[in-house]
């Protein structure tokens, strides 16, 4: 009896830990979201950019985008919530609205095309993965320290 209880207890702990780990992996996944205010062509149609978009995330302004500009924000988790203050024409009125976007788990960097998104296009149209185009800097091979060399380090 005691042994089975012990076993159950252990399995339970293990299950809880695994569950927490799984939750953490989903909840803590960080993404960098790039917001593009760029003209988009999709299935032969053209989606025009608004004059100016101010992006707020968690009440803080992260970008102010005119035509063909890109801003970025970081987000932890897959639910990206942003508030957009859109000015369609120069001198025109502002419309404020809050949007929620589901980010795909596997993408570190996500590009969202705002005109496409605002026009209500399907995900594949407005959402692309950000791939770093910066060339790998030709770094010199890093020196690996000898294992048993004395190193003070910071403590």
């Amino acid at each position, binding site marked *: 009896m005691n042994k089975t209880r012990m076993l159950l207890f252990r399995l339970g702990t293990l299950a809880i*830990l695994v569950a*927490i*780990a799984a*939750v*953490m*992996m989903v*909840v*803590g*996944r*960080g*993404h960098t979201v790039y917001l593009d205010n760029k003209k988009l062509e999709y299935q032969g149609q053209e989606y025009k950019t608004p004059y100016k978009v101010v992006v707020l995330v968690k009440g803080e302004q992260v970008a102010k985008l005119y035509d063909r500009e890109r801003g970025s924000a*970081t987000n*932890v988790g897959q639910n990206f919530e942003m508030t957009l203050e859109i000015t369609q024409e120069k001198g025109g009125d502002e419309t404020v609205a809050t949007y929620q976007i589901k980010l795909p788990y596997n993408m*570190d960097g996500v590009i969202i095309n705002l005109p496409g998104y605002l026009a209500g296009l399907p995900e594949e149209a407005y959402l692309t993965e950000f791939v770093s185009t910066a060339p*790998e800097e030709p*770094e010199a*091979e*890093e*020196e*690996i*320290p000898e*294992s*048993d060399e004395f*190193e*003070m*380090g*910071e*403590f």
Partner: protein
Amino acid sequence: MKEKNMGKKLLSLLQANSVPVTFVLICAVCIPLSGLSVSYLLNEIVTRMGRNIFLILALLIPIMSGMGLNFGMTLGAMAGEIALIFVSDWQIWGIPGVVLAMILSIPISVLLGAFCGKILNMAKGREMITSYIISFFTNGLYQLVVLYMMGPIIPIKHFSIKLPRGYGIRNTVSLLNMRQCLDNLLAIKVGGVKIPVLTFLIIALLCLFIVWFRRTKLGQDMRAVGQDMNVARDAGINVERTRIISIVMSTVLAGFGMVIYLQNMGNIATYSSHSQIGMFCIAALLVGGASVEKASIGNVFLGVVLFHTMFIVAPKAGAAITGDSMIGEYFRVFVSYAVITVALIMYETKKRKVKSQMAQQLAQEQEAENE
């Protein structure tokens, strides 16, 4: 008469706490010389307390079970680092990242701890030197895993972590996305000093756990094993198993501690973060007045404050005295080693004294029987 008694008491008290007292003196001399402001000093000390206390607490359990200073806590530190490398590659940020790293470090720590415990059981009576060598040995294995296997065998995706050659991890892994996330959550400022409340809460929790653990059956067993292995074995305690558990616990806690330590630092020095951690933690504990066979939570706190005050002010004070900042750097290293040396010498001489006393007692008893 009374005064004399008081004086005697004071003297014996000073003698019993000679190491902390010496450190108070060193600090008292060095602080004014260093010219550092009080608020800077306080800030630094509080930060370092949050950063290091958890790690040092990991040393208490093996001391309880009579296995001395666990130089093998480096193994836990390595487990924590490996876990953090994964978390950083998977891009888990913030507190979830810290929690995930802690959970991930558990299986690695348990494995390494069990290995360490098994070997220490084969080297009873010379646990410390053996655990010290184990830490070097495991460092070799760590390099094998991190420098050669990560990439081709263990998948690592990001080139910000991987070496340009395609395998192995870079010298430093940035933890920018979880930097001080524990410390900053719930942090409060008191007179310009930032207090990482959450980190201290976690530390308090661990202290409570240790206090509680001492009273459990397992904790009692460990103390019995620490006092006398043979007596404990006669009492029906599985000595080997208890010792292994004690090392495993210490390693797991050290793994957690390393995660806390590194989230504060904000980056991992992949091949050197762990190498000196055991030595510094042990030195800090001993400065707090602990010995090889006895250490309390109070020793940990006092030790961290004194040791780190010395650590912060020594370079500046050294520069002020000799005009060379390196002197202070070397001085603090020297002091760390000297403290450990002195503590080990005191422990061994005491052990010998007790042994010879027991032998004398035995001889007297035998004589009495013969008569």
